[in-house]
């Protein structure tokens, strides 16, 4: 079984949080081992839009990690999103940037979703996308939870 862990983000402020999670995962010894064995791929994507469907093509299991604004979790904490929560993800304001919810909906309609798809959020405290740096204090935590799938 081939697995892809995909961190979604952009270089702007806390939108980098998905990439931060991948950096944390990258430090894990067993991640390196599985990558070397060709059964796990880590991908950092910058606002992939519909091309997400291409990026997960060929993988049986995909884990998406993206920044989610939440005041109910400590900043930087990873938590699994439930299917019913996905519907609440905001649709984008730009046609040039289709959002995750739209991509998932289209993928489902066209039968282009991976066999197993998990979506993880990285909690960020507010909508800080106006600077190049993360909100002070965000450290990715809860990576071990993400790894429960193995």
């Amino acid at each position: 079984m081939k697995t892809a862990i995909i961190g979604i983000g952009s270089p702007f402020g806390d939108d980098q949080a998905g990439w931060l999670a991948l950096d944390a995962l990258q430090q894990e010894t067993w991640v390196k081992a599985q990558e070397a064995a060709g059964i796990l791929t880590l991908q950092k994507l910058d606002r992939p839009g519909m091309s997400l469907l291409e990026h997960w093509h060929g993988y049986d299991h995909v884990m998406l990690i993206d920044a989610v604004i939440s005041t109910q979790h400590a900043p930087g904490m990873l938590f699994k999103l439930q299917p019913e929560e996905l519907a609440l993800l905001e649709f984008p304001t730009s046609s040039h940037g289709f959002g995750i919810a739209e991509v998932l909906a289209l993928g489902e309609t066209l039968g282009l979703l991976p066999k197993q798809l998990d979506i993880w959020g990285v909690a960020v405290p507010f909508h800080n996308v106006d600077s190049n740096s993360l909100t002070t204090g965000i450290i990715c935590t809860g990576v071990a939870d993400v790894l429960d799938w193995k």
Partner: protein
Amino acid sequence: MPESRKLSIRVPILTRVEGEGALELDIDNGAITHLKFSIFEPPRLFEKLLEGRDCQEVPDITARICGICPVAYQMSAVHAAEMAFGVTISPWARDLRRLLYCGEWLQSHALHIHLLAAPDFLGFDSALAMAKIFPHVVKRGLTLQGLGNRLMRVIGGRSVHPVNTCVGGFYAAPPVAEMQALRVELAAAQEEAYELVRWVARLPMPADEQDFVSVALQHPDEYPFNEGRIVSDAGLAIDSADYAQHFEEFQVPHSTALHAHLHGKAYLVGPLARVNVLHEQLPAHLLALLAGSGVQFPSRNMFHSMAARALEIAYCIDEALRLLDSYTLPDQPYVAFTPRESTGFGCTEAPRGMLWHRYDFHADGTVKTARIVPPTSQNQARMEQDLHQSLHAFGLDNDDAALRLRAEQVIRNYDPCISCATHFLRLKVTRT
């Protein structure tokens, strides 16, 4: 009563658009009394940002102007610099630039047809709704778009804002094995692209003939991407260096993007303009795909833009296969050059139409001044003219929703960066 109907449509923020714009439309007593397609996105000041930058930074900075057509900005920029410094690129680099441009046209055109425009013609309110009824069509579109992305990734290093283009050629040559793998994928998609042309040409399209001037680059030997003279179907034929003598950019109060006129009149650039002017340079087997449909080129019907786009997708697949057939690694992917104080012009065909650049360089190769005229800016005046004519032809006595949908369709025909979106008009109607 219809004859005394006053309709005021104000769309203060066009949502789901690339950029910020609005539509204002007033109809009074069966006539349009006020129509403005406004762009109020703040000026991005790229031309000033480029001043003082080294010529090799220009393609990567200008690529950032657009996430959908970065290659076009890179191509116009490097060709301008090469003209300024007297650089002749190798035939290998020339071919690779055509191939890179094929990738951009493929992804941009496929995105527009399948995710933005086609749902209008079939009565769907989104691509997602269309995918439920026509999954194979949307899948085909995503496949073609994906192929374009992969071409850009293999040649340019990444599919958005690629980084491999430089003045003189390319920084690195793509590996032969990856190019051969691409060739296999493109060959597998060739018939799909042909089928797309047949499908688009048979979509129900409004009959709306209009009078407009089409402008495109023309090259004697090939359908153009990077080189050629600027020609129109009204007899214009000039070098890109003479652009400013014939085309005028000007401000209008309701837009932060400049409007443009050719000899004082609106004109069209983009796929329909290209196919109108250059259809004889398209292979006969591609034009034959239109047989039996209501679409023929040249066409005065702006709704045929989507068919022109589909035809160009098929052309890009064919052309990419041809170029990949002869791909080999070069001795050197770029040629060296010496900068000099000079001026250069670059005019290439972006997916949405002609993109013109002019740079004045200092002796050390840094930019003294820059001027960039993108296709959406050039099409703005034509879009307003088209909205006037199309809505009149459609019938101003149609209900609000129908008028709004028609206005959206008209705007989307241009695939403007400002509004390549699905259903982005919010209608506010006041009646008096």
